[in-house]
């Protein structure tokens, strides 16, 4: 077996096991740690398909930013030793039923569909190409969504400060 296939199975195993543990563990800080494992394995997967920039963004923003934010809020709002009660049986059955049937349905659809890749030659993905397209105004330019998301981030930042600050 080739080494990259072995790596793919390893990353898939980490993703599958840790995403189950994220939603089943009874300790909240452990759930955050398992979420971190899933996100880092995803970044490894992006490295495998040669999208280094995407992997870097995944590591910095998701694994570095969002998980740290979640851990901060866990430490602010609950005790580390706090354990969840087991969920009610009806809700557990509902959740597993929805998850399993959805997964079965989408797996069936994926296996039935034949994916036809394009025959055009592959593009070399380096930082220059990404930067030129992200701020380009012509064909394949993404400057408008870029500006919109920068305004959205500013609005989210101001909103988060106003919501979380203490009243007078």
């Amino acid at each position, binding site marked *: 077996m080739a080494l990259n296939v072995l790596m793919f199975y390893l990353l*898939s195993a980490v993703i599958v096991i840790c995403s189950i543990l994220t939603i089943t563990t009874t300790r*909240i800080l452990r759930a955050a740690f398992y979420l971190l494992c899933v996100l880092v394995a995803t970044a490894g997967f992006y490295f495998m398909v040669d*999208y280094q920039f995407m992997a870097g963004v995944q590591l910095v923003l998701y694994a570095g930013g969002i998980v740290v*934010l979640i851990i901060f809020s866990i430490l602010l709002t609950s005790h580390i030793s706090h354990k969840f009660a087991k969920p009610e049986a009806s809700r557990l059955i509902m959740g597993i039923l929805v*998850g399993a049937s959805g*997964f079965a349905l989408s797996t069936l659809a994926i296996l039935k569909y034949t994916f036809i890749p*394009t025959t055009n030659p592959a593009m070399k993905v380096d930082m220059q190409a990404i930067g030129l397209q992200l701020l380009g105004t012509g064909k*394949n330019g993404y400057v408008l969504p870029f500006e919109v998301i920068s305004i*959205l981030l500013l609005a989210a930042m101001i909103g988060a400060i106003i919501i979380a600050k203490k009243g007078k």
Partner: protein
Amino acid sequence: MLQGIPITSVLIVSAFMFFAGVCGFIIRRNMITILMSIELILNAVNINMVVFNKFLFPDQLQGQFFALFIVGIAAAEASVAIALVINIYRRLNSISVDKVNEMKY
């Protein structure tokens, strides 16, 4: 097919992750763990975007840009959600969704 890895196996892994997130969203009652489930769902969508870009349309960068924007939106959403969670904890001393029904009609 990329160096022996078929596209379907990658898609199945990301579908599993997505529905693990959906399942957690239904089962969990704590607001922060619900937020974690949403992060799982968004991450699974990101994997799909990148995989379609790499395996089916390697001559373009569309999927990668969509994944980038989804990451940005996830960051904004997480910051606002955590501000809300902290505010709710300050007012009600609990972040369980069963106890937060003051705004309910």
